[in-house]
Every structure is written in structure tokens, then in C-alpha cells.
């Protein structure tokens, strides 16, 4: 095992991205593509030891690296993963590979820059998950905005400018307040930006905790996104290119939820407990109301975007189910499983929409109909992903939702009952869309001219299908990794800091 696995995981894609950028203009697009796929593959391969060599019986951080970075400001280059963050790093490296493949011949304009932006972003995301120093985390967390802004703005749809600026400013708003919170905590924790030092603070007054929680909440709630600060997401998703949507849904949203687990809950547990009813209500609104909003969408991408918000509502719900001062272990693990699963499923759904969009250049449900007649293989795959999106047992979508609902029943029956409506709404909006797009007679001459998936698309679909089914049939592979870390977290949160 390398001593610097995490650094390698972070810097491999970034260096690869810079190399791709150096290929220059579109005349060397083929080289850029192959270089990008090599870089993404290398990034994925170096991230695998994190999964295979992870010690399930070891609580706390693993693969730790620490050295001084900006001593004068008290900032360290401190990396490490626990059972929670490790999963997301691997998931991210995996998704990056798919994204590069998904954009292969679709992106004809400034291919090198496109691929480079994704690779660099992939490294930054890994960094955000691996950082154990608050400012290091912040640097990665914010640095991500630059490539994402460009991805949406340069390669996006008609309203890309509006969407990209909205995305940027919304996320910046939240994170800047978090920065102030970090600096405040730095002085409380004896001039240290270590996240573990923040978590170890024994006493924080209630009103301070609440202010800190609000700062964290604004930052992460925008990223998740929770209702009512979700409005950037449908815009960003609809206008982003397929790859952008995949990364946004599969990974960047998860950073928000991860932030709640890493910062908000352990650092200010009493405020989290006190404000948990608010989060639960907002989450339920997301699950139910946004589920209904998804039902009436006429744009496929918007529909899946709203479905993402609804599913992420489930995640935040699972993370804030307290009985007494104890978090519910089922619900937290369920939330984590849901996050990973949603990473696969939403990436798959956006990819499917991308496949159709590349052929017809429309995302409107009404412009399709009877696609199954022309693209039978594609229709079969999309069927699987649609089922997973609506939470069918034996797919990954079921496991997480089931665990969260189980947890919720133990805490409050009515919360569980409302949350469970997602199984109905989710099935309704996903399958209804599927029916209108895929089944029936051939809708128009565009559909009549469709050709089935090519080898590249087939490959991406197969990989995603294996992931979705694998996780649905054997979730234990993931749950056993996170189990100890989740228990530690719950034990930590249960101790009051008042």
C-alpha cells in the first residue's frame, strides 16, 4: 500500500486534467479523449485500494496523511478517510470514468477543456471528502465551483448563463458563512483548523451552537439541496451537459449531506438536536411536495432533477432522526446507502436522457413515444434504472429507502408514513414518464429514425446496471464499511456540549 494513497487519489485526476488541457485546441480532440479516459481510469484504479484495503474493524480515520501547509495561518494538509467518506471517493472516481465515456463523441466543442474540467473537478471532490482540515476542505469545496461553473456555462443548454451564475452564487452564499464559522471555531479550538479538534470541543454555549449550525446549514442545505433553497438545481441540471448532470447529481449533492455528518452533527450536536424538527419537516416537504412537483414536469431532465431533490430529502431525513439525544442508526446508515445508490441511479437516469437527447435534441416528454420500438436494448436498461429510481426491491434504490423508513418508524410513526409516500410518488413520476417516452406507438418521425445504443453507450449502461443490481442484492458490502464509523458518530453526537 502506498503511504500517500489519498494524495494520489486527489492529484492523479488533477494532473491528468492539466495534461488534457495542454493538448490545446480541437484539432487534437482524439488525443484529449484518450488521455482523459486514461486519466480517469488511473484515478479510479488508485482509488480502489481505499475500498479493498479499508479496515472495517478500525474506527476513526485511515490512510491518514498530515503535514504543515500554511503554518502562519494554522492550516495543515491533513487527509484521512473513515467508512463514510471512503465510499464517496470511490464512487466519485467511478462516476468520473463514466462521465468521460458519456461525453466521448457527444462533446465536439472544446473537447479538451471539457474533459479537463471534469478531471480537475473529480480531484477536487476527492479532496473535499478526504480533507481533515477545515480550510483544506473549504479550499476543495469552493474550488469545485470554478470547473462546474464553466461546465454548465460553456457546454450547457440555452439558459446556461442564468443557470451557471445561479449555481455559483447560491453555493457561494452558503459556504462563505461556513468559512466564518470555521474561523470562529479555530479560535475556540485553541488555534487549530483540525476538524477532529472542532468535534472534540467539549463546551459550546447553546446560542453559539445555533448560530454555527445555521452557518453550516446554509452551506450544506444549498448543496444538498433542501427545500426551499433547491431552486438552483433544476436550472443547473436542465442546462448542464449530460456529464455535468451526472456529476452534479451523483457526487456534488452528496458533499452537502456529507457536510452535515462531518460538521453540523458532531460539532454542534445540541443545536442539531434542537433544530432537528425543522430539518425533518423540510426534508418531508422535499419528499412529498417535490415528489408532486416532479409528477407534473414535461421536461425529462427537470423531472429527474426534482426526483433527486426528493431523494435527497430522504437522506437529510435519515440523518436527523433523533430519539432522545440518540440518532437512529438504521436511519443514518439508510441515508448513506441511499446516497451511494442515488449516485448510481441518478447518474444512470441522466445518462439515459442524454442518450435520447443526443439523437432527438429534445428533452420534452411529449416529443417522444414508442422509443422501445426502435431502441429495445436501451429501453430494457432504462426500465431497470426507472425501477431503481422508484425504489423497487432488489435494486439499490430500495435498500436505503427501506432502512430510513424502518428507522423513522422507530422514532415517529407519522414521519415514517409521510416519508413512505415517496414509494408511491417515486413510482408514479418515474414510471409515468417511462411509459410516455418508451412505450406506445412510435410518436413522430424523429423517434422513427432512432438507432439503438452504440458500444460505448452499451458499456456505460452495463457498468451502471451491474452497480445498481449489485448494491441492491448485496448492500452488506457497503454497509459493513460504514458501520463502525456510523456508530462512532452516533456515540459522539449523543454527548451534549452544553
Amino acid at each position, binding site marked *: 500500500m502506498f503511504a500517500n494513497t489519498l494524495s494520489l487519489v486527489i492529484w492523479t485526476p488533477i494532473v491528468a486534467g492539466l495534461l488534457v488541457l495542454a493538448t*490545446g*485546441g480541437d484539432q487534437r480532440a482524439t488525443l484529449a479523449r484518450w488521455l482523459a479516459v486514461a486519466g480517469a481510469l488511473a484515478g479510479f484504479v488508485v482509488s480502489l485500494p481505499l475500498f479493498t484495503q479499508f479496515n472495517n474493524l478500525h474506527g476513526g480515520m485511515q490512510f491518514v496523511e498530515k503535514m*504543515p*501547509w*500554511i*503554518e*502562519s*495561518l494554522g492550516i495543515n494538509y491533513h487527509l484521512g478517510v473513515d467508512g463514510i467518506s471512503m465510499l464517496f471517493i470511490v464512487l466519485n472516481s467511478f462516476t468520473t470514468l463514466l462521465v468521460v465515456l458519456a461525453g466521448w463523441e457527444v462533446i465536439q466543442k*472544446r473537447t479538451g*477543456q471539457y474533459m479537463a474540467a471534469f478531471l480537475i473537478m473529480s480531484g477536487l471532490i476527492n479532496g473535499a471528502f478526504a480533507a481533515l482540515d477545515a*480550510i483544506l476542505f*473549504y*479550499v476543495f469545496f*469552493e*474550488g469545485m*465551483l*470554478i470547473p462546474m*461553473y*464553466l461546465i454548465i*456555462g*460553456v457546454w450547457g443548454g440555452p439558459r*446556461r*448563463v442564468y443557470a*451557471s*451564475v445561479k449555481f*455559483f*452564487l447560491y453555493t*457561494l*452564499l452558503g459556504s*462563505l*458563512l461556513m*468559512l*466564518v464559522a470555521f*474561523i*470562529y471555531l*479555530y*479560535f475556540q479550538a485553541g488555534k487549530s483548523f483540525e476538524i477532529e479538534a472542532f468535534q472534540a470541543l467539549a463546551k459550546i454555549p447553546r446560542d453559539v451552537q445555533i448560530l454555527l449550525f445555521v452557518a453550516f446549514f446554509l452551506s450544506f442545505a444549498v448543496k444538498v439541496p433542501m427545500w426551499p433553497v433547491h431552486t438552483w438545481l433544476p436550472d443547473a441540471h436542465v442546462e448542464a451537459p449530460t456529464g455535468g448532470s451526472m456529476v452534479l447529481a451523483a457526487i456534488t449533492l452528496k458533499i452537502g449531506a456529507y457536510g452535515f455528518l462531518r460538521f453540523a452533527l458532531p460539532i454542534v450536536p445540541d443545536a442539531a438536536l434542537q433544530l432537528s424538527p425543522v430539518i425533518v419537516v423540510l426534508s418531508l416537504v422535499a419528499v412529498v411536495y417535490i415528489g408532486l412537483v416532479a409528477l407534473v414536469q414535461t421536461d425529462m431532465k427537470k423531472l429527474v432533477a426534482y426526483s433527486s431533490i426528493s431523494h435527497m430529502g430522504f437522506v437529510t431525513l435519515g440523518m436527523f432522526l433523533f430519539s432522545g439525544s440518540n440518532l437512529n442508526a438504521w436511519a443514518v446508515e439508510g441515508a448513506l446507502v441511499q446516497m451511494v445508490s442515488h449516485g448510481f441511479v441518478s447518474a444512470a437516469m441522466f445518462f439515459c436522457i442524454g442518450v435520447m437527447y443526443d439523437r432527438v435534441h429534445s428533452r420534452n416528454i411529449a416529443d417522444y413515444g414508442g422509443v422501445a420500438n426502435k431502441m429495445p436494448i436501451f429501453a430494457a436498461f432504462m426500465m431497470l434504472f426507472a425501477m431503481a429510481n422508484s425504489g423497487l426491491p432488489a435494486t439499490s434504490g430500495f435498500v436505503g429507502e427501506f432502512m430510513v423508513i424502518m428507522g423513522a418508524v422507530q422514532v415517529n410513526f407519522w414521519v415514517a408514513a409521510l416519508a413512505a409516500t415517496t414509494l408511491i410518488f417515486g413510482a408514479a413520476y418515474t414510471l409515468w414518464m417511462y411509459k410516455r417516452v418508451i412505450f406506445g406507438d412510435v410518436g413522430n418521425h424523429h423517434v422513427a429514425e432512432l438507432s439503438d445504443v452504440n458500444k460505448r453507450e452499451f458499456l456505460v449502461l452495463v457498468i451502471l446496471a451491474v452497480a445498481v443490481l449489485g448494491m441492491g442484492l448485496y448492500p452488506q458490502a457497503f454497509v459493513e464499511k460504514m458501520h463502525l464509523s456510523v456508530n462512532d458518530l452516533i456515540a459522539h453526537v449523543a454527548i451534549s456540549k452544553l
Partner: protein
Amino acid sequence: MNWADLNLMPALPEMFLLGALLVILMLDLFISDAKRVITYGLSLVTLAVCAYLQINTFEPFASYTFSGMFIDDPLSDIVKVAMYGVTATVLVYTRQYATDRGLFKGEYFTLSLFALLGMNFMVSASNFVSLYLGLELLSLSLYSLIALQRDSARATESAMKYFVLGALASGLLLYGMSMLYGATGSLDLALIAKSIASGSANQTLLVFGLVFIVAGLAFKLGAVPFHMWVPDVYHGAPTALTLMIGAAPKLAAFVFVLRILVQGLGAMVADWQGMLVIIAVLSMAIGNITAIAQTNLKRMLAYSTISHMGFLLLGLIAGTPEGYSAAMFYAIVYVLTTLVGFGILLGLSRAGFECETLDDLKGLNSRNSWYALLMLLALFSMAGIPPLAGFYAKFAVIQAIVNVNLVWLAVVAVMMSLIGAFYYLRAVKAMYFDDVQDNSPISMAGDMKLVLSVNAVALLVLGMMPERLVAMCVQAMKLSLTTL
């Protein structure tokens, strides 16, 4: 004065600069326009030698000369080296631009070097008289530099405005200084500090004087509500001179403020802190909000400068050594970033065409993706997005004010930088998202291309590894403040 005791070593670089300057002035009379590049080369060599002398005579303590009027401490050494570098960079960036507009004359170089000499004196002054002399040498050189393009109504108007308002500010400053002299009986900063600390000075007169001083300093920095001249002068001056005003003088002004408020009036920190809070908040707010409405890039950058001065003042408001070093770091990073921003504008301009509106940036990524990337780095650095140097600058000043329990001010500051992010994003949008409007080829001289690239990449490198520079600022403040 005893001649035997006169040790001129602390002012060696300045004396060399003056000597070289006079040589260049004379030599240039015999150089034809076609060979003007010789003057250019000589000026660069002069700056390099100055930097060499400055670094070579570095001492980790303060030494005085000219009867204690001139101080040479680590703070001034670092800032001076930075100013030599910045001035040289400005000369490189503006060569093509100035040649195309008939500004490439001997006076251009001699006046630039005179301005630099003035700045050196501002940075090294430890007495109101030398402070004022340095300031006026700088200001008068800049007024005439702007007016150098004498056929341009816009430039002349701009020079006139700058002159009138600058003179007003100098007047305010002098008035304040005279009151302080009345209260303390001295013009020497160290003696003034001692007199105030002993409590023997007339408090009312002191505070009165302080108000005038702060107003004068705010004028020079271009902070609200004394900022009116900034957009007009930035906009009206030829871009080359906008850069000259916006770069090194900001560094000098920062040290100038530090010398007067911290070194001289440090005991009155409670009095000036409140004034600076108002000025800083207003600067950040008005600078950022007004910048949104600008379509002219030079005006936009002018308002952006106003907001940056607000941020810089945050470091002083903290009133701690960490705060001062954070502000120093901010000033250096700000100047580095400004150089890139205006450097691109200069590079995109050509004979008969001024690149100065947002529309002129449209589609830059398709015209030349490297320049677009450099500008992108500068803009995101100004917006304070990591991993660019501008982030650590903002971070350090915010850390300093949170340390003195001004959390509310920190929240205001970050909200203002959020507003600021919008107009930087709009410029990025023009470069990357919009289609090309003007597809004429971009020709940038080789030397400029190289320096500009190094300059912009430095923002990124400094963002990844800021420790060196931050530590240097901290060390300089520590060494220099002990002598205060």
C-alpha cells in the same frame, strides 16, 4: 548635523535610483524615437539593480538616516522589492500600448521612476515631512504622467480631476498633521507616539487632527466616502497609466497608512478603529454594488479596487500584528492580481483600439484560450475563490478580525464578497460563454507574454503554496513593529 555620523547606507537603493534616473533623463535627450527601447532597457536594468541593492542590504532590524527622517526596516525592504518588481512589470506590460499611442517617450520612464522614488520615500518615512514629500513626489509624477497624452481630452480631464482632488486630499492630510504637531509638538512619528502614550497631548486636538488624517488617507487609498475620483481617473487615464496608478501606489499607500496610524497614532487605535470600520464597510458595500452596474471594465475594476481597499482596511481594524501582516499580504496579492487584469486589457488593445468594455472580452476563450485562462485566474482571485491567492488574502484579514471578536464585520465582509463575485463571474461569462464579436488577431510582444503568464500562474501557485509569502509578511511586521 554631524557629517561624520551621516550613514547613508539605509538609503542606498534610493540614491542609486535617483542617480540612474538623472542619467536616463540626460541620455534620453540624445536618443531618437526609434531607439527609445534603450531607455526602456536602462529603466529595467535600474530597477533590477535597485532590487539587488535592496535585498543585499537587508537587515532584520530598523536603521535610520537623514536625522531620523528615513527608516529602513524589514517592512520597507519587502515592500520596496515588491514595488521594483511591480514597476518593472508595468513597464513591460505597457511598452507596446505606449508605443502605439505615442506615449513611449523619455518622460514616460523618468516620471515613472520619479513616482517610484516618491513611493520609496513614503514607505521609508518616519517623519511627517518626509512622508509628505514622498507622497507629493509620487502624486505630481502621476498627474503629469496621465496628462502626457496631451491631445486626448479624456486623459487631460482625468489628470485634472486627479490633480484637484489629490491636492484637496493632501491639504486635508497637511491640516491634520499640523494639528497633531500642535498637540504633540513633534513631526517625528516615534516622538508623536511617545507623546500620545504619555497622555500629555491635548486629546481634543488630537482627535480633530486624526479625523483630517483619516480623511486624507482614505482619499489616497480611494476608500468610500472619498472614492469619487477613482472611477473617473481609472476610466479616463490611458490603460497603461491606470495600471500605473492602480498597482505599486497601492502598496505604498498601504505602508503610508500603516506608518501614520499604527506607528504614529497607535495609541489612538480605539479612535481610528471606529472610523475605519465605517469606511471599510462603506467601501466594500458601495464598491461591490456599484461595480455590478458597470459595463466598462476599467470602471468596474475601479469599483472593485474600492471594495478591495475596504477589505485591506479590515486588517488594520483588527489592530493586531496578525491583522497588519494580513493586510500587507492582501496588498501584495491585490497588486499581483491587478497587474494580470490590466495586463490582459493592455494586451488586447492595439493601435486605434482600446479594450475596455465587457463586450471586448467576449469569446476570448475561442480567440486565445491561454489569455482567457490567465484572465480567469485573475478574476477568480479577485473574487476570492480558492485555490487562488486572493482567497488567502481575504481569509487572513477575516481571521484577523474574528480574532478580535468582530464576527459581525466578518459576516458583512463575506456577504460583500458574495456580491462582488457576481461581476467577476460576468466577465468570465463574457470570455467563456459568449460568442466572439471581434475576431482580430491578438499580438502580444514576447516579453509581455512571458511575464504575464508567470504573473498569472503565480496567483495559482501562491494559492497552492502561500506559506512563504504569508510567513514573510508576518515576520516583517514582527521585526518592524518591535521598533515602533
